[in-house]
């Protein structure tokens, strides 16, 4: 226990880094994924094609490769993110946005077509129909799959450890290298750190799900 107390500042900072990576990337991914899905269902062909291309590229590329590209690949085109943390956020959100987009699209497809038809018949344009009628209903049906995306994202943040961000996984490496005798304790502390993020999320998702359910 003394060991944990000694290393508390490192563990706390690492936990906060993991948490903020997940939360900030989650918000960015939600915004980007919503824009992408609007493009994917829009009546404009080129927008649909662009969004489909994005989703297929990011969904089918290993996250580590996305990290590599954003950390080093973009030097080639004379670009660089201001910090390693921001690089990690960019990689996590651009990758996760593809999954958010697909989760939302399944939700949009679950909204009966008559809903959008009724909105269009009232004179709402495409954007208004999407914003006021289709997306609010789609979001409600995708709470469980979006919850899965969120939990996957929370765990995917660990790849940032490989790119010099001191998150929980990086703390695990550092502490276990220096304290081989305390290995189990280090593991337990790190796992608890992740569980503190993911377990309450699962509970929260269930509560949101019940709250926003639509009776049909």
């Amino acid at each position, binding site marked *: 226990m003394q060991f944990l107390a000694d290393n508390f500042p490192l563990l706390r900072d690492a936990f906060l880094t993991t948490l903020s990576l997940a939360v900030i990337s989650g918000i960015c991914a939600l915004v980007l994924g919503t824009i992408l899905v609007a493009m994917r269902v829009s009546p404009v062909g080129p927008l649909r094609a662009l969004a489909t291309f994005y989703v297929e590229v990011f969904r089918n590329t290993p996250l580590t490769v996305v990290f590599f590209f954003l950390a080093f690949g973009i030097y080639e085109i004379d670009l660089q993110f201001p910090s390693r943390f921001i690089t990690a956020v960019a990689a996590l959100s651009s990758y996760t946005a593809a999954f958010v987009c697909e989760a939302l699209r399944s939700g949009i497809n679950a909204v009966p077509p008559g809903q959008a038809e009724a*909105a269009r018949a*009232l004179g709402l344009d495409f954007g208004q129909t999407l914003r006021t009628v289709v997306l609010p209903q789609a979001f409600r049906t995708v709470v469980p799959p979006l919850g899965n995306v969120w939990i996957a994202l929370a765990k995917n943040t660990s790849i940032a450890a490989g790119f010099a961000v001191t998150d929980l996984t990086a703390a695990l490496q550092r502490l276990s290298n220096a304290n081989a005798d305390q290995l189990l304790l280090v593991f337990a502390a790190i796992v608890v750190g992740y569980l503190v993020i993911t377990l309450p999320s699962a509970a929260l998702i269930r509560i949101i799900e019940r709250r926003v359910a639509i009776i049909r």
Partner: protein
Amino acid sequence: MTSVTSPAIGEPLVRLSGVNKWFGDLHVLQDVDLAIDRGEVVVVIGPSGSGKSTLCRTINRLESIEKGEISIDGVKLPDEGKQLARLRSDVGMVFQSFNLFAHKTILENVTLGPIKVRGKSKADAEKRARQLLERVGVSAQADKYPAQLSGGQQQRVAIARALAMDPKVMLFDEPTSALDPEMINEVLDVMISLARDGMTMIVVTHEMGFARKAANRVVFMDGGRIVESSDPETFFTNPTSDRAKDFLSKILNH
């Protein structure tokens, strides 16, 4: 004082000329010509698959057409975009399956169009919505959600929702076909009172009683064509085409 853009009285409000539509190889609308005057109530009947619902849906371009022209109040139906949205706001539509917005209350269903499309204030839109809900007899349900209402109530709300836009013409696409028999009349009564108030209506229906009571004209369709078009009395007592005679003998003689 009439405005310059508004056509003279007597000009048809809705005009379809040479309208053709295909679903793949299926020629669902074939050279359809139809003109509907202001205040006219036209009932479209015909066997299933005759294209009557498709015809109704082309008038506000929920279905596009491949050939021909449709104009409303002298304005040709635009392709996609803001102009189409504006034109649709003048054409009320009532669907077979009601299509009330499931995540909004009854009152919000009726105020959505006026607020988002007409730019009305929430207070004005709500005041008008309550009047309309009163008129169709569901004012007590204003704060409930659609799923909490019976089918007949939902369809009456759908009529109020369309009326809230002050449409020039109302389209009814089999408005009573999804209803339990005991709820059909409450919806028909609302429609009959609308017709009496002078609303221009195009009604696709199997309700012959409504056609007799409220229609100025009955249009009989078969195989994507308008086969016969006459006043209800003539149509029901003395149809000219064999196809209409056959259809009527099947639905009226039991």
